[in-house]
């Protein structure tokens, strides 16, 4: 009886909290939309009584844009969570879980709107800490604890760098108010300005998950409950992007060319390596986490190009590149949240993240499969959905760079474009794998066999995001003018007039000679041209027999799940081609009964070497441990020694006090 009461209370608690989150999200969205449309800034501050802590918030175009993105994702995640939390959160109290969820949303909203360095960092830490508790929801599993620890450690390091970077900028501005810090980076001497840029780039880069600071991301995102993973990948890593946009385009009026080149390079490396590591995963959520790294890379390609254009004095092109980066930020948030919610639904029904145990889910979970497919097409950058539009804009920005600069650096732009093409093609390969192995053909385990479609609210949450993918893709040319206030703020130019033509139907590269594309026309033509085979079928095929038969399998009777291609097999060619990167290791053990031709059992093990963990982080960890060991000399556990230290410190302080 008590148990029953508890379950009902839990269900109502989660509904209440998710409803609150939904309303909050809608309000945030209203604020964001209002901020974008109004054009002028809104600000508000509250004296806190604590020195240096000035609780100032401000809605300028950049903040409004990120708030709006947050609202879209938070609203759909809130709707999804109602169903997701109905059966409790892995046996934990839904009240605590949901309060933390709402705290994270509050932290995110404040990060995007804070207008004071100290207040920003406070909001930042609230977000980081609340997320940590959500990541370790399932703290009985060692994987969760490890992922959470790595997350919090890396975040601490990132915040440390942010602290120093912000202090340098604030000292140049003489205040911690964001408005007064506009272009304050330019007042610093070149070396200090460069250092502050590097620290802030790396500090925000930890959060965004740039390579090589990404290692926490594939460890922490998969172990969190899936609605949290969707928020983390969808919007939380975008706080890093927001911070970069704020610093690069607001706090610095101009940055040297090397800064833009560095951002472009980090973008390219993150994109290519992110997708290559994603291909090797057969844990569905880890795969998605690596794709977040890839997409952050694509966003940074846009940002890097924008920085370069600004330093070469082309504000129009810089605006195009910035729009490409920001639009991809929004698009990635939408389709990545969709995919994580889809993965969450699969996990909810099959209780496994291992793709090798899935299969055949398209028949058992048709709606989830459809939404996941839409997300997969969008993230692969295929027309006519939103991923295509922002990648197309990124290509156009990169190509424009060839003519805009004079040195050999301009070759870097088309090469970056070619590597973006590689990234997109590998992403398509990866999502053929992710969708094909998870949803198609025969189930590979009993859990997959018994999978059921998820509840209505979970499907609604996904449907909203799937719809957003289509709207942002097909309606891109009507949405782009909303970016004008941001480019106006950053570079003082509005370019949407050059980007949109043909009564709003056509997206252009900013010049009449540049390329053009129209997703609505392409989509319409695809439907229209499908009419040709359809009419052929009506003409001839309709009367013909249509037989359902077994799949051909070399004449053996009955296709079983053992015959199917696995995720590991699917990525095998790429594992071999990029062998020098992955350094794959495999082990095969076969047990024989009579002759080696009739193995009784085969044990196969294959893994790739995590290069960054091994060559970059292991030495650092070793170094820290060695330092800690040498500290043992002074901290030996003897109480008398400690008392002596206190005494000595006291005397030293007194001496200083007398002198001062």
């Amino acid at each position: 009886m008590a148990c029953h009461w508890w379950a009902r209370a839990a269900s109502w608690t989660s509904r209440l909290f998710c409803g609150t989150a939904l309303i909050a999200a809608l309000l945030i969205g209203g604020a964001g939309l209002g901020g974008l449309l109004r054009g002028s800034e809104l600000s508000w501050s509250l004296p806190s009584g604590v020195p240096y802590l000035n609780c100032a918030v401000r809605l300028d175009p950049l903040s409004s844009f990120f708030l709006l993105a947050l609202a879209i994702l938070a609203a759909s995640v809130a709707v999804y969570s109602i169903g997701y939390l109905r059966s409790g959160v892995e046996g934990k109290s839904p009240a605590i879980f949901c309060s933390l969820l709402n705290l994270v949303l509050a932290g995110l909203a404040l990060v995007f709107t804070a207008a004071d360095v100290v207040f920003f960092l406070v909001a930042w830490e609230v977000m980081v800490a609340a997320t940590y508790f959500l990541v370790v929801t399932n703290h009985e599993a060692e994987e969760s604890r490890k992922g959470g620890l790595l997350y919090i450690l890396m975040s601490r390091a990132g915040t440390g760098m942010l602290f120093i970077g912000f202090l340098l900028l604030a000292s140049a501005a003489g205040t911690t108010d964001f408005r007064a810090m506009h272009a304050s980076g330019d007042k610093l001497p070149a070396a200090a300005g460069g250092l502050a840029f590097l620290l802030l780039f790396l500090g925000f880069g930890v959060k965004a998950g740039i390579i090589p600071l990404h290692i926490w991301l594939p460890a922490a995102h998969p172990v969190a409950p899936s609605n949290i993973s969707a928020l983390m990948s969808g919007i939380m890593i975008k706080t890093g992007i927001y911070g970069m946009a704020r610093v690069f385009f607001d706090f610095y009026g101009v940055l040297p060319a090397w800064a833009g080149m560095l951002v472009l390079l980090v973008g390219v490396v993150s994109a290519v390596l992110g997708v290559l590591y994603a291909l090797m995963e057969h844990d569905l959520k880890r795969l998605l986490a690596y794709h977040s790294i890839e997409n952050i890379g694509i966003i940074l390609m846009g940002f890097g190009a924008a920085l370069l254009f600004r330093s070469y004095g082309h504000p129009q092109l810089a605006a195009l590149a910035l729009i490409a980066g920001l639009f991809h930020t929004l698009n990635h948030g939408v389709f990545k949240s969709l995919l994580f919610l889809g993965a969450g639904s699969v996990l909810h029904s099959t209780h496994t993240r291992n793709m090798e145990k899935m299969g055949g889910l398209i028949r058992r979970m048709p709606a989830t499969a459809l939404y996941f497919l839409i997300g997969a097409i969008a993230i692969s950058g295929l027309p006519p959905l939103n991923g295509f539009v922002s990648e197309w804009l990124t290509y156009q920005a990169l190509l424009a760079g060839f003519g805009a600069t004079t040195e050999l650096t301009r070759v870097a732009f088309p090469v970056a474009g070619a590597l973006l093409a590689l990234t997109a093609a590998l992403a398509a390969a990866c999502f053929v794998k992710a969708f094909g192995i998870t949803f198609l053909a025969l189930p590979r385990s009993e859990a997959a066999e018994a999978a059921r479609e998820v509840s209505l609210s979970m499907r609604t949450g996904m449907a909203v995001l799937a719809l957003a993918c289509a709207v942002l893709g097909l309606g891109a040319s009507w949405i782009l003018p909303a970016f004008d206030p941001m480019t106006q703020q950053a570079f003082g130019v509005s370019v949407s007039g050059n980007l949109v033509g043909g009564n709003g139907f056509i997206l252009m590269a900013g010049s009449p000679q540049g390329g053009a594309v129209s997703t609505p026309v392409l989509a319409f033509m695809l439907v229209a041209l499908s009419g040709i085979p359809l009419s052929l079928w009506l003409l001839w095929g309709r009367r013909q027999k249509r037989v359902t038969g077994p799949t051909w399998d070399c004449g053996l009777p009955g296709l079983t799940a053992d015959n199917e291609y696995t995720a590991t097999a699917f990525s095998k060619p790429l594992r071999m081609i990029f062998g020098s990167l992955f350094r794959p290791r495999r082990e095969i053990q076969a047990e024989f009964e009579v002759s080696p031709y009739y193995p009784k059992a085969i044990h196969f093990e294959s893994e790739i070497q995590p290069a960054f963990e091994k060559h970059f982080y292991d030495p650092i960890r070793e170094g820290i441990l060695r330092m800690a060991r040498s500290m043992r000399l002074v901290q030996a556990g003897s109480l008398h020694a400690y008392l002596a230290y206190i005494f000595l410190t006291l005397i030293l302080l007194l001496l200083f006090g007398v002198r001062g």
Partner: protein
Amino acid sequence: MIAQLISVIGQTALILLFSPLITGFSRTLKARLQTRRGPDLWQPYRDLHKLLRKGMVIPDTASWIFPATPYVLFATTLLAGLLIPTIAAQAPLSLFGGVLAVVYLLALGRFFLALGGLDTGSSFGGLGSSREMTISAIAEPALMLAVFTVALGAGSTNLSTVAESAVGQSWRFLAPSQMLAFAALFIVLIAETGRIPVDNPATHLELTMIHEAMILEYSGPYLALIEWSASMKQMVLMTLLVNVFFPYGLSADGSPAGMLISVLLFVFKLLILAFAVVLVETGNAKLRLFRVPELLAVAFVLSALALISTFLFGGHGG
């Protein structure tokens, strides 16, 4: 508006009706070079006609992805064809998408084809999908870089602008960047259309097939649509090559005589290119799968050189 509609319909008909002939021409020519008689030019049309009228067997493991794939593949390939200039420099739909749209539409078709391969549950389908996605992924940077080189020379990714920029510069293709980019795209053409030395369209040997493995379970009208799309894709990519590098006879005027000359020149250029592909096919053995990346790396290096020579010598020779 009416003129545009006519040009859309005309180009749709041209691609639909002419593409099987290129396939037939290649097969016949290949047979002759191997001193076989081979099928005649019109065999692909007979095959399509026969397949379209047959019944079909659908695997019992397949979902709706399996029947949707032929339609998606057919529509995306045909639409890509409408974005490319064939007989006139102005492609019917060039306003609505340039070379990036062409590449990505073909990628959308490939995405579904690979899913169709996995949908049946047969290991051959998975094998084909895996190899197809791998090879197309590593062909992509070479393709894009070569395309960018040409686009940068013309200042646009719009193919009609690219073709128009070459009109009046008859010897432009002799510029080093153009020749290198052409060589790179030629390798990509062979890889993307699944010809020897990358894939063998005539094989059904389990361990070597790529494209054929994915479509093993398709039969009847669906198979016809897929085969037809393969012919169209080949024609689209070949047209891209000939008209971007040798845009002769892209008639600016709409006079009947001018149109006729354009059509004849277009057919002539395509057949020459098909002949070149067949020569490569006949003179080479199929590469092992893991040697294909090396070939495509050559293509990437060629297109990188093309880009650098654009930087050094400028995009316009002659």
